[in-house]
């Protein structure tokens, strides 16, 4: 029964990935799905490092980028027939390079976790990003290198002309990578990574070298980051310096954190959220980065375990069948919160726009009229007051639903 339940999640995951383009098949949608697929693998690999191994990295894009660069070079080699293999193996090339880079860099960066590791990762990241602009023959300068995925031998008649074909290939790789990354968490090395994250000192007293454990996790994370880089190369057919610089490293940190560190599904949630924000929200507002920043800070402050953590918080109430008692208080706080959010965003947009008229939620506002500002501000204030009133109620309901019983013997699913 338990086995069936467990594999049901996996089958559902695969089915969801495969079914997505059935619902949305525009070029844009497929392009977003491809982005998501890449972000999921990259995010999971980052979570391996930070969530599982406790290593805060500001330079994880190095492995992603190197994998991607080598993958594009492999595409170029296929094009001139130096080598000849189907491009379905390209992510493996990326993974191999990511692993090699991690094998080398890990020898000196995994001595310590914490600040020292973070700083080394930052330094390496900056160094590589800078050298990628200097060593033009390999990295192609700021224009990057570009290849063509259609030159290899066709795979069962598929010549990879369409991004949709690449999506299905990506799904296969995402699924394989997710399975392996999940299985890794269930191995001795994976569990010891958790132990070293929690308490490196004690880990040494149960027979494990904290450094070696970190090294293994680090290499595994490098491998999967490289796989993600390889997928990137297949999807975009080019790669540039920006894919191994600090901005990319920062973004994966953001997405993993927003999704929820420490939960296996966290980075998947984060990857989906961030990709959607990046590709959809950015079309509606040029302030989307500002909103992303605010959202990130709020997540760090109020949802330290991210969105996945927020969902997991309800596990206990769910198991005990008390989730329904939370519904009404949630609505009572949620609706004014949403209203508050909408009105604050409205204020920001209204003060930012340089058009006289702003269409917002079907309404038209005049950005030069003080009245319109005041109107929205009143809505914001009103909803804020309403939140303040309903919040204690929610808190009480929450506590009632989560009262700690004498012993908690329910199995956790994580």
């Amino acid at each position, binding site marked *: 029964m338990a086995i069936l339940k467990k594999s049901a999640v996996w089958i*559902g995951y695969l089915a*969801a990935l495969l079914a997505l383009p059935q*619902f*949305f098949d*525009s*070029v*844009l*949608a497929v*392009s977003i799905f491809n*982005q998501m697929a890449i972000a999921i693998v990259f995010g999971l690999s980052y979570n391996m490092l930070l969530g599982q191994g406790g290593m805060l990295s500001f330079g994880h894009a190095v492995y992603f980028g190197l994998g991607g660069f080598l993958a594009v070079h492999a595409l170029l080699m296929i094009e001139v027939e130096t080598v000849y293999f189907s491009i379905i193996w390209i992510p493996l090339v990326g993974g191999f390079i990511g692993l090699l880079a991690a094998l080398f860099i890990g020898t000196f960066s995994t001595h310590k976790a914490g600040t020292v590791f973070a700083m080394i990762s930052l330094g390496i990241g900056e160094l590589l990003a*800078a050298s990628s*602009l*200097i060593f*033009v023959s390999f990295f192609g*300068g*700021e*224009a*990057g290198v*570009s290849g*063509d995925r*259609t030159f290899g031998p066709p795979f069962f008649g598929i010549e990879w*002309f*369409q*991004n949709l074909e690449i999506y299905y290939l990506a799904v296969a790789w995402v699924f394989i990578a997710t399975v392996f990354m999940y299985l890794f968490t269930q191995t001795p090395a994976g569990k010891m990574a958790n132990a070293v994250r929690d308490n490196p000192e004690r880990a040494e007293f149960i027979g494990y070298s904290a450094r070696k454990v970190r090294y293994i996790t680090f290499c595994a994370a490098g491998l999967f980051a490289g796989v993600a880089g390889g997928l990137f190369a297949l999807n*975009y*057919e*080019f790669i*540039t310096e*920006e*894919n191994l610089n600090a901005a990319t490293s920062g973004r994966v940190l953001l997405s993993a954190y927003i999704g929820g560190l420490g939960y296996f599904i966290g980075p998947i*949630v984060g990857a*989906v959220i961030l990709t*959607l924000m990046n*590709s*959809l929200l*950015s*079309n509606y507002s*040029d*302030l*989307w*980065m500002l909103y992303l920043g605010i959202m990130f800070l709020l997540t760090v402050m109020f949802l330290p375990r991210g969105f996945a953590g927020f*969902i997991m918080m309800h596990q206990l109430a769910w198991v005990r069948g008390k989730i329904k008692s939370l519904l009404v208080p949630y609505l009572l706080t949620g609706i004014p919160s949403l209203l508050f959010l909408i009105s604050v965003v409205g204020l920001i947009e209204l003060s930012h726009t*340089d058009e006289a008229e702003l269409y917002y939620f079907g309404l038209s506002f005049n950005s030069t009229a003080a009245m319109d500002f005041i109107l929205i501000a009143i809505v914001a204030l009103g909803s804020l007051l309403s939140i303040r009133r309903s919040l204690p109620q929610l808190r009480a309901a929450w506590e009632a639903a989560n009262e700690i019983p004498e012993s908690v013997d329910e199995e956790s699913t994580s």
Partner: protein
Amino acid sequence: MRTSRFIRHIFLSFLLVFSSNIYAQEPVRLAFLDPLTGAFASIGNSGLKQLEFAADYFYNSKGGILGGRMIEIVPLDNKQSPTESQLQFRRAVSEGIQYIFQGNGSAVANALNDAINRHNRRNPGQEVMQVNYSAVDPILTEDNCSFWHFRWDAHANMKLNVLTDYIAADQDIESVYIIGQDYSFGQVVSDTSIELLQQKRPDIEIAGNEFHPIGQVKDFTPYVTKIVASGADAVITGNYGADMVSLARSIIDNGLDIPIYTFYAAYDGITATLGEDGKNRIRLIHNEVSNPYPTEERKEFVRAFKAANPNNDVTQPRITNALRMIVTAMEETQSTDPYDVGLALEDMRFTTLSGDEIWMRGEDHQVIQTLHISVHTDEGVEFDADNSGFGLYTEFSAPIEDSMVPVNNCRMRRPSR
């Protein structure tokens, strides 16, 4: 599972919004792909306003084109990133847009060129044209030239050809110092100007040839110290953005009084930032003559633009040229198919608002036009930049023959229909 259904829901609603743009009289949709957020947003937004304004001014206010179709400009934000450009390109394709205006950054232009060529090869009948109004990497009309790419700016070698002519004619200049960002354009500027100067004035000494990483330099004073020590009479730089401002600022602050020859040292805040300090020191090589404007027509256009966008300037008249030439080609062929329009654009001759005749060379899809060298000043500037009172005053104009550079390595593959 619950979350994924939720996400699907959001998704659905978003995509519905996209696909519901159905108009009675279908507009001609042109995408404008440039940075609209981030560090280079001001340049991108300024360009967008110019394109939107030009479309309204010349066509939409007069009943549209092709018998009543409006021009709709679709802004796409590429955040100055090649990767993001690719995503936005797919969005354009997804919405059936077949013309993409793009100008900022040769890296982006090159990536877009590759992406468009691949797309056009794989999706016959849905081709897309790249309207390059500003990226100056020569390779785009040389080794990587493509039928689907047209350029309205003069490429770096053309500009340098004129610039070195100008410097060579100045007998006071005995040595020049070249400094630039360490990337392809910076290198092109350095290599080409050394080569051309040695041809034209072998006696000019290259006092220095320096590269610095893009956006990494905090303080340019150490570089300026070297320039001073070298005793150079002039500086040539291809820097743009904050690196341009910082460099010029450092040169001025350290009391070095020599001319600085630049490509991108005007408008979008730079003119205002340099202000009085840069007067008569900063010179720009550019197309489309600056103050005094030669025709009433152009003055009218700029005044109308300023009336609508008081905080922006017409920084890139070539955007207008590109739009007008494309529309001319559309009207000529009565088609919006990039293939037809492309054929019509080839070897088109067109008179700009300034009264110049420009020529879209069919061989490499490079516009040939007069080039000008202007100085940063507040004298004789009828149309200033950044509302600062300062602007560009044209000192030297190179006729079309002098700015032309022959085609060397373009072997264009033409699609067959």
